[in-house]
């Protein structure tokens, strides 16, 4: 699938480590403007991440839960500056499920004291974790 010519460099860096580095034909992730997929020769662009699944398609398909950060897209490279990102095996599914329920409860109760925006982000984060696990 990954013939040379349509691959580009992808680099995922976090404050502590280089999370992933390699070649890919396509990456997909969630941004503030909606979910997008990037191929080679994309228009240079900087976008902001929303919690979701990061899918890197290269030799094989890799998935990770990407929670916050931003992405610099250039024609022959994509650099993801991730504040928080996890591989599937770093995720505790039970905890994610519990967090999802908690966030959903907070949102349905409509208690004026709850921070809605925060509960929504928590829910989005939990959903991203769960869908990466599957």
């Amino acid at each position, binding site marked *: 699938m990954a013939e040379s010519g349509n691959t580009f460099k992808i680099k995922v860096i976090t*404050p502590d480590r*280089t999370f992933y580095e390699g070649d890919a034909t396509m990456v997909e992730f969630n941004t503030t403007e909606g979910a997008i997929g990037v191929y080679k020769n994309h228009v*240079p662009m900087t976008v902001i991440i929303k919690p979701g699944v990061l899918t890197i398609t290269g030799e094989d398909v890799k998935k990770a839960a990407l929670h916050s950060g931003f992405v610099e897209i250039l024609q022959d490279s994509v650099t993801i500056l991730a504040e928080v990102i996890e591989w599937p095996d770093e995720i505790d599914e039970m905890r994610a499920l519990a967090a999802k329920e908690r966030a959903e409860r907070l949102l349905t109760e409509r208690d004026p004291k709850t921070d809605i925006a925060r509960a929504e982000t928590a829910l989005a984060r939990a959903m991203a974790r769960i869908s990466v696990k599957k």
Partner: protein
Amino acid sequence: MASMRDIKRRRSSIQSTGQITKAMKLVSTVKLQRTKQAAMNSKGYFDYMYRTVSSMLGKAGEINHPYVLGNGSTKKAVVMITGNRGLAGGYNSNVVKLVTRSELKKEDVVVYTLGKKGREAMNRYGYEISEDFSGMIDAPEYVDAMRLSTILLNSYRNGEIGEIYLAYTNFKNTVVHEPKLMKLLPVDKAEAIEGPTDDAGGPVAPMNFEPEEEEALELIIPKYITSIIYGGMIESVASENGARMQAMDNATTNAEEMIDKLTLQYNRARQGSITQELTEIIAGSQAQN
């Protein structure tokens, strides 16, 4: 001349001090290796972050955002990163001096301290201390920096503080660490444009932002602040260990020198006492004859 017993006592006390400083040196050498590695690992992230924000500010033209324009408050927040422990040479006092001798007026400054030593010193100088985050500096984590930057940005948005500075120690290499005072907010546009935007040197396709620059700025600046604070934290920790290693190395060398000197004195005193005893015995026997 001091008596043999006195010299012996001093020598053994210096010897045990030397042992302690030597052990501390070894410990901080190991810690330095680890913290240095952490600082190296993060470098890529910060360089990219800096570049992106610079190119964003450079490109965006006139931005009407409080992060760039300021909010009119005269209060200046200084995030000061020092160590929780002393015996690190000038490490702690250099950062303190940097802030107390800077152009910032004492009345305008609110200090957010990371590190007990810095807090104690600022207290003595009579600065207003807002909150203490000394626990963070033992093992800096990115979430700690996030918490701190959220607090700072909230106060900034409420107009409680008008400028944010960071005082930390820049880790240049194992032996060179320089204290630095850096302005975080409002973002200095003139400085930002000078920043590297294109390392290839050739013309690059113009960068687009989605959402638009102003909105993107709103979202990226908090991340930018967080990452600078985090970077400051890990560089300072690396510097602290480096400074302590050097200080303890010097202390060990000094202790060894003193021991050599005292050993010499001790031997002289011993020789002197033997000579004296002999003289006394001979004098005694001669008197009997």
